[in-house]
């Protein structure tokens, strides 16, 4: 079966920023976390997938179909949640549903009502009266009520309290029980992904730095600590980036077993977090 999302050589040029020919592949049944600092190109990539921006080169296939040529068919099966609610603030939840639902051929009113109840959303309240968390939940309810096979989320957790974030993550892990579905989730809050992502793709300054299975990433990479005296002996090429401090250094290695072999008991190796991996990678980039 073809991947849910396949991006090859995608380019988009702006005056001060460009997406430099990126590749991403996401199979059904998985959640991919799309991480990177602000301005790295996450939203640009998502807007290109949704045909909100015109690409300069490369291709994007969703469900095996070209995203521009088959735009409407594809969008029937995409659920989206953006970082800001783009729903009309003057309308109530039920009015807004009434506007959006007719566009989806497979709109499921029962599913929508179920989510509204589950999320405790007040149907007769105007959207501008909802909290940020409630707005996100409303977007999510719409995204989940038309049998979407791909959920695209652009920083859905930014600005939300930990409770709502946890709730969202729980819902996503429920959604992904259906092996036909996939989730593409951009964020800079990497701790969200440690709980649910199957794959992690790191983007920085318009380039994909890595795209790997999360467990492989967290098991192979290592956060290394060593004393000052070692600094002169280490080969900088062994590390993704080195951070010196008062007592010695801290560095990220791609293969902790290799590092253990080379430096033995001169170093301490710890399991890095996704945040460590993101920070070291993007900093190397800056220092280079």
């Amino acid at each position, binding site marked *: 079966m073809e991947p849910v999302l396949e991006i090859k050589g995608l380019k988009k040029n702006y005056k001060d920023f460009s997406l430099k020919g990126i590749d991403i592949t996401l199979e059904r049944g998985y959640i991919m976390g799309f991480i990177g600092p602000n301005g790295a190109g996450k939203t640009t990539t998502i807007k290109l997938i949704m045909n909100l921006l*015109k690409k300069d080169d490369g291709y994007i296939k969703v469900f095996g179909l070209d995203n521009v040529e088959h735009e*409407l068919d594809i969008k029937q099966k995409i659920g989206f949640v*953006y970082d800001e609610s*783009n729903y*009309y*603030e*003057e*309308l109530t939840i039920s009015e807004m549903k009434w*506007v959006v639902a007719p*566009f989806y051929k497979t709109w499921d009113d029962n599913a929508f009502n179920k989510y509204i109840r589950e999320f405790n959303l007040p149907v007769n309240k105007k959207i501008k009266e909802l909290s940020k968390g409630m707005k996100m939940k409303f977007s999510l309810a719409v995204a989940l009520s038309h049998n979407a096979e791909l959920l695209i989320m652009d920083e859905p957790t930014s600005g939300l309290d930990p409770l709502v974030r946890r709730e969202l993550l729980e819902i996503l892990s429920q959604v992904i029980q259906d092996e036909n579905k996939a989730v593409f989730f951009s964020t800079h809050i990497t701790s969200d992904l440690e709980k649910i992502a199957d794959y992690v793709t790191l983007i920085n300054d318009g380039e994909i730095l890595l795209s790997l299975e999360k467990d492989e990433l967290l098991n192979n990479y290592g956060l290394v600590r060593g004393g000052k005296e070692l600094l002169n002996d280490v080969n900088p090429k062994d590390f993704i980036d080195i951070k010196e401090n008062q007592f010695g250094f801290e560095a990220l290695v791609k293969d902790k077993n290799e590092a253990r072999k080379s430096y033995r008991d001169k170093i301490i190796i710890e399991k890095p977090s996704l945040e460590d991996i993101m920070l070291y990678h993007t900093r190397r980039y800056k220092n280079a």
Partner: protein
Amino acid sequence: MLSLIIKDVLVQKKQLIFAIVYLAFVLVAFQGMGEAMFPMGLVAFTYLLSMTACAYEEKNKAELLLNSLPIKRVDIVTAKYLSMILYTILGMFAYKVMTTIINLVNIPLKTYPLSLEIIIGSLAVVCLMTGIWFPIYFKFGYMKMRIATFVLFFLFFFGSSLMTSFLKTRQDSQWVEGIINFFESQNDFIITLVLLSIIVLYMLLSFLLSMWFYNKREF
């Protein structure tokens, strides 16, 4: 498509009431204008509602939403043109109801019936304005269009008075005379037909231009 038009009305329920009150105000306050008061009121009515609908799109960043839903861009553009026609009909209907009430209750106000002439004339003025606004809106968005509208209004009002005085001084010139002769020699039906065709053609052109701009827009 229908839900896009209904959405435009739903987001501005309050403005709709305000626009109707405004129309009533025009009816009372511009008694001195004679027959021209209705076209003027209608243009303001349609302007208010069309612009407010566009303003809400921008305020809510709703273009991101609309273009992420399975909607063709042509439908988004068409819906805006159709809602403009809806407001025009709504304005005419409101005017009709108001004048009927005024006459029934014998309120001492002068009213003018909605003759074909008045309807076509109003339609022409409404189309002349919106036919320029919409392409600008679909190309640049609401904020920039507001500036353009401001300029346009001035050009329109100064332009029309300049045009009138220009025509008056050139009454003897051949082409002005030709046009006047043409209209004088035809019956009302032909004139209506010609004017309607010009309006339709003009709006079609405006629509195609809007479509072309909107297809190229990035959000």
